[in-house]
Structures are given as structure tokens and as C-alpha cells.
């Protein structure tokens, strides 16, 4: 590891890093925490714990590197270690199981011609949000990281401690599952059939 990384921050530098590089991500962190726990108090605790850990381990953060990815990784690990077990929601399928079930490299690309861009755009926030919240936690997580927070595959691989190939396939499957749900919503909204064509 580099010299910079091993060097200890002074008291003043710590404040600068904490306030300047960590605190600006609090909205994203809370949104992530809430979508993991579905509970305001748990989300608050999770964000607080994350920031406490970030402060405690601040010397292992290299200034100028991606603070948001670093924080998200801590939050995700805290969630797995401390919160997942006592989550108020019934346990969802674990990604290990899911990924053993599917062949990890065998990603299925298919046309969802019965779901249209228009119907997705017409959906209300609640429908999208509910569809996202309905996904198993590991699928939900990759969508949050990629689509809500704009992390790259490489950053996601680091946050989740999984290979990039797994990020890609998990994300693809997550989106397919999301589309299935949205298709259901679209059909109930009357967008199901091709009225105008043919």
C-alpha cells in the first residue's frame, strides 16, 4: 500500500476529510439504508454506525479516492453483519442460493416486447419503488448501486466483494425481475396489448 495510505491524519485533517468527503453522501447513504431495512429507525442506526466506523477507520481512507464507494462498502457490510439477521421483513432468498440456482455466466437476454418504454414512463413513483422494494435484497442492492447511485461495475465489485462478471449478471437478472413486476403493473394499467399497431 502507498505511503499516503499509511500516514495518519491529524485531528484537523480528519475533520476536513469527514466533513468534506464523507458527510456530503449522507442522503445517498440514508436512501440506501432505508431501502435495505425498510425501517426508519434501523436505517438511521445503520447510517450512524457507518459514519462511526468511517471515523474510526479514517486512516485507511486515502484522500481523493472514491469516498462514496468506501462508505457504501462499510454500510453494506454493517447491514450484512448486524442488521440482516434482525430485519423486520421476512427473510428473502440469499444471493448465494440464487446464484447457485442460476448458472452465473449464462445470462439470458430476451425481448420484453410486451413492456414499453411509454408505460414505464407513465408509472408513478410508488409503483417503481414498490417493484424495487419487492426484489430480494441482493438484486435490490445492485439496482440501487447502479441505477440510483450511478456506481460503475468496477466500483460495485469492490463494494460488494464480488467479481465484475457477477456484478453484471446479477444486475441483468435484477433488471429482468424488475421488468417482470413492471409488466404486471403495466398490464393492470391497460398498457398490456398493442392497441395501435396491427
Amino acid at each position, binding site marked *: 500500500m502507498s505511503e499516503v495510505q499509511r500516514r495518519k491524519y491529524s485531528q484537523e485533517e480528519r475533520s476536513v476529510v469527514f466533513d468534506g468527503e464523507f458527510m456530503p453522501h449522507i442522503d445517498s447513504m440514508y436512501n440506501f439504508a432505508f431501502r435495505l431495512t425498510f425501517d426508519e429507525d434501523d436505517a438511521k442506526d445503520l447510517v450512524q454506525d457507518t459514519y462511526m466506523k468511517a471515523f474510526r477507520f479514517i486512516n485507511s481512507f486515502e484522500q481523493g479516492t472514491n469516498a462514496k464507494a468506501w462508505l457504501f462498502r462499510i454500510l453494506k457490510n454493517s447491514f450484512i453483519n448486524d442488521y440482516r439477521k434482525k430485519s423486520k421483513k421476512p427473510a428473502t432468498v440469499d444471493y448465494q442460493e440464487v446464484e447457485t440456482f442460476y448458472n452465473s455466466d449464462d*445470462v439470458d437476454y430476451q425481448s420484453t416486447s410486451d413492456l414499453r*418504454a*411509454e408505460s414505464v414512463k407513465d408509472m408513478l413513483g410508488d409503483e417503481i419503488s414498490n417493484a*424495487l422494494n419487492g426484489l430480494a435484497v441482493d438484486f435490490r442492492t445492485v439496482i440501487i448501486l447502479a441505477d440510483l447511485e450511478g456506481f460503475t461495475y468496477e466500483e460495485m465489485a469492490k463494494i460488494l466483494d464480488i467479481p465484475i462478471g457477477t456484478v453484471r449478471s446479477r444486475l441483468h437478472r435484477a433488471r429482468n425481475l424488475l*421488468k417482470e413486476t413492471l409488466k404486471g403493473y403495466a398490464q393492470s394499467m391497460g398498457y398490456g396489448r398493442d392497441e395501435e399497431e396491427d
Partner: protein
Amino acid sequence: MENTDASSPERKLQCSDVGKCFQLLERILDGELVEGGNELLQEKLDQCQPCFAHFHLEQAIREVLKTKCTKQPLPEKLAESIRQMIQDAR
């Protein structure tokens, strides 16, 4: 924005390789493919109806997720209490 479901006579109605094409489109949308990506994308969108529809659907989904799922209001005193905890920990 243009009508994303518009069919064009120049576009073929069958995609020659859905697997490869869709993977490419999705990676471009995820910002993972830059080199030559734009030309390839334009070619697919101009010439292939399934690719055109898939691209716009995937793009719409990313947009609604980004605009409608990131607004969880931050509890009022959270930032303050974190700053306090850090103060106390010093």
C-alpha cells in the same frame, strides 16, 4: 423526445442476435462501453426494431429509478447527531 415506440421502415423487425445486441445496449447504458460504442449504438438503433425498443425501455427504467427512488427524506437530526457522536468520540 421522439416517440420511442415509433417503427421505421428501415428497421428490420427481427434482431439477428438478441443476446449479443441487448448485452451491448445494456452495457452502453451502464456507461461501461465507450470505445466505438456510440457508432455501434447508432447503427443498432437505426437498423433494428427490437434493439430500438429494448434500448428505450431499458433507458426509461433507469430514468424512473433514478428520478423516483432517490428521494427518501433524510431524518431531520441525523446529520447533526452524527456530528455530535464524532465530537464525543474525539
